[in-house]
């Protein structure tokens, strides 16, 4: 087993430090868990049932963080949530909040989602709280059958005494769609990795990430989408803010395999640097083995756009208010997709508190 976390699909110069996550993201050493994990005990939306065991078709799906993290979650999960969504349109989201505290400094959650043909399911995963050397890890495996729509919303609001690992893997069948929305705000180390296999014709995937790093935070992302099906479509959007001595690595890879004709993959990233000691690293890969595809990547990294600042100040905002507004705007695409008003407010409050309300 390779213990590296968030490995770049195609390695590059080792001195760039992007081939894998930094040492600070090493998994904690935990004793082997003897008690079986507890199943999800909350409410289930209509059309969703709880499974006692995960079907092999779901269990075999790898995540974007790599075998080490997947294995870690399987070995140490204290909570499992195996879901089967049937046909029909489910409106109400399923929400599970894991809270770290001095009484529970470790939370490990294994999600398995089998989305039946034509089904729809929204899952909201919230992490908050903190503990000395706290650790929260989750693995979400998704099998989206033809026409299914699965939306995963991940909100990480941990305190800075804790670390988190969030791994997602999905297989997407014909006409199905998977959406991952994540807001990463807390934790001394926050590592995330997605691997989405667009196998069926016209399968779709979208990823919207917003993050805010400050203090000594380390953020590490490895997002990979593999196009094997014809007419498949992916959109990867990441926006973030880095202050103080925080650092971030984003690996975003669109992999067009031979046969993925007419596939389209777009990736976009904007990074706002608030501090001369923050560090941003980005490795946006496009791998292509098919002629008839369209792949694009765009990234911008830098400071506040002076023209925008000037405009906002000319409308009566103070420079601090204008900057605050511009930072909040980076979270807007993610906030818009969070169904719970209270969660949206909590995220905005978190940002405001860290910026110092103007």
């Amino acid at each position, binding site marked *: 087993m390779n213990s590296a976390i968030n490995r770049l699909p195609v390695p590059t110069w080792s001195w760039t430090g992007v081939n894998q996550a930094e040492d600070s993201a090493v998994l904690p050493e935990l004793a082997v868990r003897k008690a079986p994990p507890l199943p999800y005990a909350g409410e289930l939306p209509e059309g969703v049932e709880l499974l006692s065991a995960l079907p092999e078709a779901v269990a075999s799906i790898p995540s974007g963080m790599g075998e080490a993290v997947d294995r870690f979650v399987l070995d140490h999960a204290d909570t499992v949530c195996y879901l089967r969504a049937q046909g029909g349109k489910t409106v109400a989201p399923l929400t599970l909040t894991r809270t770290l505290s001095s009484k529970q400094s470790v939370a490990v959650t294994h999600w398995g989602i089998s989305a039946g043909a034509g089904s729809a399911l929204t899952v909201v995963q919230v992490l908050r709280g903190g503990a000395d050397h706290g650790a929260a890890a989750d693995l979400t495996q998704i099998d989206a059958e033809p026409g299914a729509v699965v939306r995963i919303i991940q909100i990480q609001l941990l305190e800075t005494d804790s670390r988190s690992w969030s791994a997602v893997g999905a297989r997407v069948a014909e006409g199905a769609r998977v959406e991952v929305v994540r807001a990463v705000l807390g934790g001394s180390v926050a590592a995330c990795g997605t691997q989405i296999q667009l196998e069926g014709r016209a399968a779709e995937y979208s990823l919207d990430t917003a993050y805010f790093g400050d203090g000594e935070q380390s953020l590490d992302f490895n997002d990979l989408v593999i196009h094997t099906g014809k007419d498949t479509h992916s959109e990867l959007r990441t926006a973030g803010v880095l202050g103080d001595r925080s650092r971030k690595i984003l690996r975003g890879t669109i992999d067009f395999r031979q046969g993925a004709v007419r596939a389209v993959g777009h990736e976009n990233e904007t990074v706002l640097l608030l501090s001369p000691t923050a560090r941003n690293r980005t490795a946006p890969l*496009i791998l292509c083995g098919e002629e008839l595809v369209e792949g694009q990547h765009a990234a911008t990294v830098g400071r506040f756009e002076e023209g925008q600042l000037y405009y906002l100040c000319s409308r009566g905002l103070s420079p601090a208010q204008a900057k605050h507004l511009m930072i909040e705007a980076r979270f807007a695409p993610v906030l818009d997709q969070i169904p719970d008003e209270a969660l949206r407010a909590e995220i905005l409050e978190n940002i405001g508190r860290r910026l110092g309300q103007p």
Partner: protein
Amino acid sequence: MSRFDQEKTRVEAVDRSVYDIKDRVDPSFEVDSGLTSAIVEKISAEKHDPEWMRIFRLKALRTYNEMALPAWGPPLDELDMEHIVTYVRPKTAMQGKWADVPEDIKNTFERLGIPEAERKSLAGVGAQYDSEVVYHNVRAEVAAQGVVYTDMESALTGPYAELVRKHFMRLVPPTDHKFAALHGAVWSGGSFVYVPAGVSVEIPLQSYFRLNAPGAGQFEHTLIIVEEGAYLHFIEGCSAPKYSVANLHAGCVELYVGKNARMRYSTIENWSKNMYNLNTKRALVEEGGTVEWVSGSFGSHTSYLYPMSVLKGARSRMEFTGITFAGAGQNLDTGVKVLHAAPNTTSHITTKSISRDGGISTFRSAVTVAPEAEGSKSSVSCESLMLDSRSRSDTVPVMDIRCDQVDVGHEAKIGRISEEAIFYLMSRGLAEEDARALIVGGFAEPIAKELPLEYAVEMNNLIHLEMKGSIG
């Protein structure tokens, strides 16, 4: 006959075999294949190295033996140093007149158009054949400006010996990577250029590297110093006939660009498709200076090539314009590196790559902005064209930004030739093959326009040649 038929006839008249003509292998001296300290000592002795260089070579060899092969990039499994001859001396000393160069070697360079180019459009020419420079000349009026253009061996022991010693492999130390260490151990040939402060060399200098011997390596070293306020355009060309055994090119280019100086370095690389091209190029740019790289990669079996610029002085600039064309059997890993190490530095990178007939093209880059580089700007634009689904085209860029007062942009696109554009051109009477060649030529046009006319024509011809047979 339509004008497009005429175009096609002209293209067919360009014959790739000009690069593939093999001279009889008749060296005056060569070392055994393989890489040992005895071989390195032998090369050093044969070249009458100063003592410091002999020690330098042996130390580099130790570094080579200690370093691992890269853990990234195209496979190098079939490159066996036990079967590479690292030094092959041709049967001539360096000459200052083409008439004095042996007939067969001179004919090879004639076919490649070097003496003609020298007469028409160059300020000076160096021609290397296998491991040694066989011809070097610079126009009298350029020399009169104080410009030095000579072979590295002469520079190593001549009046510029101390300058060479001060700069040789300081930008690219042997510890940089395994093949830089190899270069340090067995380098031979190459050019030394010194342009004094304030001197503008209005027409380019060119060095051409020809590798004739099968199973041999070429390890030329190019060291260029452009002093404050000076300007130089240097052109590098290279080719080799194709053999069934692997050849190796591990050259090294070091450019020192002074305050407010400008240096343009153009390369048309057309090595044969049995060549491992593991070349290292680097520039150090002082305050207000500019380095411009123009790079066309067409040949080689395997390439690792990433010219690097260190923007050391405030307001220094780098521009990189490159094209890579990977055809059957080729795995070309090319790109660029830049380090912004001072305030208000600027880099612009524009690359195009084309893959066809099973060829693999990888664009690899690293843009690093150091904490002290406030006010710096960098833009990267990378476009890849896939001509069939047997080929590959990968893009592997990295940005490392450690400063908040910067503007960094990156964009990459990958795709195919538009069917609508082909249909339109065919509706105007072009055959499909010509339509595709025209579109690919247009794709490469931003690169071609950066090259001197003769080289732009050569590049376009190479593209047309590569495109022949691309249908069906």
